[in-house]
């Protein structure tokens, strides 16, 4: 085989999460009363457009999660040797972006490097000039043709994107016409996104659309790779928070007594430590463990990956307390209601009461808190990486991009594109997540639903 599939820890967790959400979706589809709030979400134009944007991000993230290692041409005694470099399907798709590295910084859409270099011309004279890029705009014979070429390629790319978008829109309209979805907004958004994507794809074929960084890597590629890291931080963390908060919160609220005391004690202790400090302390300790056990990891990617998983774990441990407190309070309220008391009077076991009556009735709190936390976690990653307790420095993420670019702030003229790209991508992701979360909260929170009715 010419490649070997690699399942990193974070990949496994992502697939677990994917399976869980698909099962959840299938479960909800079967039940009309659970579907109802989702219908309300689906009617909101804001939610559906944000969801479309989020879906694109998730698609990139998922493609970037299918990892493999390429076989090297030389064999070691009949045994195939695999490259230590772990690639993903996404890397394969955008191979030119990944492979076409320049020498150092170049501005977005530039055809020359950002700094002058000395070169010898044919007559042996030393010239100080901006050297042409190896790949960016290499098809142009003269750098001055660039503006026209960029304009032309941008326009044709947009046109192609729009055509493709129109085809999708026509197909979509036939199938989705009767669902009561905000079709107009969705179709407009599809067209706009398709146009932008077409333009970027057409330009990225021959230019570095967002420039290159210090070691000449394409910033667009880095930004796209960062998406996976951000998404994993935002989602895998819930795999830790959810069981902890659900189990302990409901147990404390339902059983009361000493269980309640213990759970309350644990979450008061954890929440009394400022979260950045707790995360910093835990990450420092994790670093010591990882550094003193280099034999655990066969590739540098697997080391960086385990660090990411640990970071999610730590973020989960520090952030379950809020949800736990909410669930405890809600359970305390629920257990006094008549239908629970009736179930108790009928002799239904505690376990069945919890699974049949309590858990389904607190799920809206869980869901709201999960979607609301997502954007905060994505933003937290950048801050933690800046502080030095985030992801591994070799892992591409918004935090490491900002961290690397920050040092270039002092340069004259300034290298701004890596910062702008990281902040821009983060803004789009977090804004979409925030808007979607707002609609989900409005649709699922019974308190809000009743207050809008009474007015």
């Amino acid at each position, binding site marked *: 085989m010419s490649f070997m599939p690699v399942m990193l820890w974070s990949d496994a967790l992502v697939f677990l999460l994917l399976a869980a959400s698909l099962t959840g979706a299938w479960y909800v589809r079967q039940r009309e009363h659970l579907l109802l709030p989702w219908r309300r979400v689906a009617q909101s134009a804001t939610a559906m457009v944000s969801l479309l944007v989020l879906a694109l991000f998730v698609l990139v993230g998922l493609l970037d999660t299918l990892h493999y290692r390429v076989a090297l041409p030389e064999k070691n005694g009949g045994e195939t040797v695999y490259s230590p470099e772990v690639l993903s399907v996404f890397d394969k798709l955008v191979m030119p972006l990944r492979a076409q590295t320049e020498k150092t910084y170049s501005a977005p859409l530039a055809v020359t490097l950002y700094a002058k270099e000395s070169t010898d011309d044919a007559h042996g004279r030393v010239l100080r000039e901006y050297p042409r890029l190896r790949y960016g705009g290499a098809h142009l014979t003269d750098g001055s043709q660039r503006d026209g070429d960029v304009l032309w390629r941008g326009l044709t790319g947009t046109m192609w994107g729009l055509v493709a978008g129109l085809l999708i829109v026509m197909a979509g309209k036939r199938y989705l016409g009767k669902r009561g979805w905000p079709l107009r907004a969705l179709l407009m958004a599809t067209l706009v996104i398709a146009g932008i994507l077409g333009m970027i794809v057409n330009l990225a074929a021959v230019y570095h659309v967002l420039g290159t960084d210090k070691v000449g890597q394409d910033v667009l590629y880095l930004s796209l790779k960062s998406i996976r890291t951000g998404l994993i931080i935002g989602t895998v963390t819930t795999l830790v928070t959810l069981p902890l908060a659900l189990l302990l919160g409901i147990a404390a609220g339902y059983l009361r007594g000493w269980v309640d005391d213990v759970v309350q*004690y*644990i979450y*008061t*202790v*954890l*929440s*009394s*430590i*400022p979260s*950045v*400090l*707790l995360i*910093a*302390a*835990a990450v*420092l*300790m994790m*670093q*010591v*463990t990882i*550094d*003193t056990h*280099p034999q655990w990891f066969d590739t540098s990617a697997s080391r960086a990956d385990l660090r990411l998983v640990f970071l999610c774990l730590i973020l989960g441990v520090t952030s379950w307390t809020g949800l736990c407190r909410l669930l405890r309070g809600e359970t305390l309220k629920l257990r006094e209601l008549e239908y629970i008391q009736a179930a108790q009077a009928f002799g239904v076991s505690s376990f069945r009461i919890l699974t049949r009556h309590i858990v389904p009735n607190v799920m809206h709190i869980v869901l709201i808190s999960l979607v609301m936390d997502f*954007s905060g976690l994505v*933003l937290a990653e*950048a*801050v933690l990486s*800046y*502080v*030095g*307790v985030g992801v591994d420095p070799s892992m591409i993420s*918004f935090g490491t991009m*900002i961290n690397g670019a*920050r040092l270039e*702030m002092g340069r004259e003229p*300034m290298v701004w594109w890596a*910062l702008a790209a990281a*902040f821009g991508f*983060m*803004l789009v992701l*977090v*804004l979409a997540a*925030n*808007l979607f979360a*707002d609609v989900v909260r409005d649709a699922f929170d019974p308190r809000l639903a009743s*207050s809008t009715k*009474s*007015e």
Partner: protein
Amino acid sequence: MIAYLIRRILYALPILAGVNLLTFALFFVVNTPDDMARMQLGIKRVTPDAIEKWKQQRGYDKPLFFNKTEEGTHKITATIFWQKSASMFVLDFGYSDDGRSISREIATRMGPSLAIALPTFLIGLVAYIGFALLMTLFRATALDMAGVALCVLLMSVSGLFYIIGGQFVVSKLWHLVPISGYDGGIGSFKFVVLPIVIGVIGSVGSSSRWYRTIFLEEIGKDYVRTARAKGLSELAVLFRHVLKNAMIPILTGVVVVIPLLFMGSLLTESFFGIPGLGSYTIDAINAQDFSVVRAMVFLGSLLYIAGLILTDISYTMVDPRVRLQ
């Protein structure tokens, strides 16, 4: 009141003990002092002698909980737990890796931290509540919608962007204030003004939206309808009734952070070169100075618990129905 306070402080002790145990477990049980020594001295070339020396210099060359080689009470006191963790209860934080007293560092660095954090907090409080009241006054109009949209947008921007962007525009393009630095006394004004402004702007989005939710919840209540029926103007209703009644949820979120202001802000201080506790912590994290991080964790939870107690006291001041017993 006094009895209540004493009881609350006694309640706080087991929590602090928990924090203490947790940090102890994190720093000494998950990784042994040997691991830490190896990490600090470099993984590859490190001799057992060097590790022993490193541990001895920092007082880590003792058993964790129980010292069999010592006599009497020293069995307990001559251990890492007693000397490094339990001693924090009397605010004895020991020495950092560069040999300075952590307690003294904390005392000198609190000033600069407060010089940024306190004005940010006060200006922010007034600005956010004002903005939220404005949105509440014009609720369900285009102005309110625009305000909420602005809040969501501001919330979605990374905090790092405000700092980096602010430094770039104000300091680098306009040359209004120095990029970073600090000076004692009145000279510090030009250094602190930008961090304060950025700090206030940085949480306009989430805070104003949160206050707006609180006010909107209050405004649906019966007493508001009564107040309007009396013929009060909308402004009078907002300031005299809604604001007063919203005090409990506002205080719940606000008072608890007041003691934590001493800790300063990690990001702001390190970007602007303010010699406060925030930059102290960041430097310690980067230098992997574990004793400083441990001290800051303990100090942080101590201040947080103080904030919780202050919150309870503040309730009695705004709500005559609350009595502490």
